């Protein structure tokens, strides 16, 4: 781990009317690191993810991203074209509902190839080869490459979304409850897949989940949120084995007793 963060946020605050959704939130993410954001429903996890990824402007505070050349960018001060370029190259976003990200009227191969084409890939054969390679990596039979996503199961759709996102080798991926819409039996397999892919490709991930088990399985570090505030943060094992804040203690014990 280098001492230079990939993404840093300081004093993020955001209110929806009278409701404080983020209060003085600090976040640091290092290259290749998996950071879990946990907390109960309504604690501000998705709001934080959207602010970190530049999709939602905070009322106060700033988010900084360090590009591959080492230059820092104030994410919310970036011109829209630059932010969009970032989102389709260096960054990726995995939604809870894969239908939000996938093009349902485009074949699996076209879905995986889109980011390559958006980056200027102009060789059909090589786009197809990479699509086949990525379908295989996410354990979708390469023979399904010309099939429409609507013929895929929920787990397959989520894996297709991951292939579509990772095909351009992003350095940073934001994930919002990536297993949230799946059966428990399918969840475990997808989590294993995510873990092996991001480890091998050395991708940094901000992962939002309300599931402590998911955080323990995947994340190096963890942020615990309650009512828009970070109440505890640290190495995942330390925080979960020896929670200091009463709210974290409650979260952990509720899992143990479940």
């Amino acid at each position, binding site marked *: 781990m280098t001492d230079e963060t990939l993404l840093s946020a300081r004093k993020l605050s955001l209110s929806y009317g009278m409701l404080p959704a983020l209060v003085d939130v600090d976040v640091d993410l290092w290259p290749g690191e998996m950071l879990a954001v946990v907390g109960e429903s309504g604690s501000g996890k998705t709001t934080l993810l959207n602010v970190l990824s530049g999709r939602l402007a905070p009322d106060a505070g700033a988010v900084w991203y360090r590009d591959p050349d080492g230059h820092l960018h104030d994410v919310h001060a970036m011109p829209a*074209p630059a932010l969009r370029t970032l989102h*389709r190259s260096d960054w990726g976003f995995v939604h809870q509902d894969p239908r939000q990200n996938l093009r349902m009227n*485009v074949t699996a191969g*076209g879905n995986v*190839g889109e980011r390559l*084409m958006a980056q200027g890939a102009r060789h*059909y054969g090589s*786009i197809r080869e990479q699509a086949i390679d990525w379908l295989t990596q996410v354990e979708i039979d390469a023979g399904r490459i*010309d099939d429409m996503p609507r013929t895929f199961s929920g787990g397959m759709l989520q894996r297709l979304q991951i292939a579509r996102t990772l095909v351009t080798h992003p350095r940073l991926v934001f994930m919002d409850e990536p297993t949230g819409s799946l059966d428990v039996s399918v969840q475990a397999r997808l989590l294993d897949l995510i873990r092996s892919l991001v480890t091998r490709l050395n991708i940094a991930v901000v992962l939002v989940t309300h599931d402590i088990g998911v955080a323990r399985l995947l994340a190096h570090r963890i942020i615990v949120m309650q009512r828009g505030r970070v109440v505890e943060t640290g190495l995942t094992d330390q925080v979960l084995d020896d929670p200091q804040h009463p709210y974290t203690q409650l979260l952990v014990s509720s899992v143990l007793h479940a």
Partner: protein
Amino acid sequence: MKGYNFAYLDEQTKRMIRRALLKAVAIPGHQVPFGSREMPLPYGWGTGGIQVTASVLGAGDVLKVIDQGADDTTNAVSIRRFFARTAGVHTTTRTADATVIQTRHRIPEQTLRDDQIIVYQVPQPEPLYRLESSRIETRRMHALADYGLMHVKLYEDIARFGQISISYDYPVMVNRRHLMSPSPIPAFDNPKLHRMPTLQLFGAGREKRIYAIPPWTEVRSLDFDDHPFRPIRAPHPCGLCGATDSYLDEVVIDDRGGRLFVCSDTDHCAERRAAGHVGTEGLKEAAE
């Protein structure tokens, strides 16, 4: 014609359209909104093209109007007559004699010159229209030159049909920056757009958009390195003039299902025949 301004439109409207045209020329391939006027013709009859033509026409111009390559369709004849009456300009069917050519669905076969202007009638100016229904989103895509989606469409064609299956309105990149609809001309005509010496103006009346390609601009048909763009043409010579390099229409010639391939550009065909070129049908007629 009494009671009308020159070329029907009032001067203020023409100035407004010319301003849009200047902007369009300055940003090749970019769609410029304009305050489209009611014209004494229904939409679909080329009201966008007519307004552009009206705004660039001068008293000394010679106008040619073509519809699917022909000068003699009802549409072409009425637009020609409209300007003959309202502007008193000379009209012609000869491509070489025209200074302004308004067209629907074709580019003349004869190479156009730098002292001519070609005006295209455009039904749908947005090349991403079928792929992305949101206007806000397509505008953003143009602003950011974010055209991956158009290539996805081409990718899907090859994956499904083994080739790119767009035969009309084949999308182009203008000046390496803007994705543009060339209007519903056959893909066969696309290469003529590239580095044409002629000023090319596009008018969409219903959609209220104007765009342009200045002379000598780079215009590339979208494709893949390993599936290059190929202009498609029926593999026959023209039955009337014998041309093997012109775009052909298939026409029914009798009530026994007889068919014939002939030049879609009627002026081009007539000129070739006048110069002594004969196709198979012409030879048959001579023999009878």
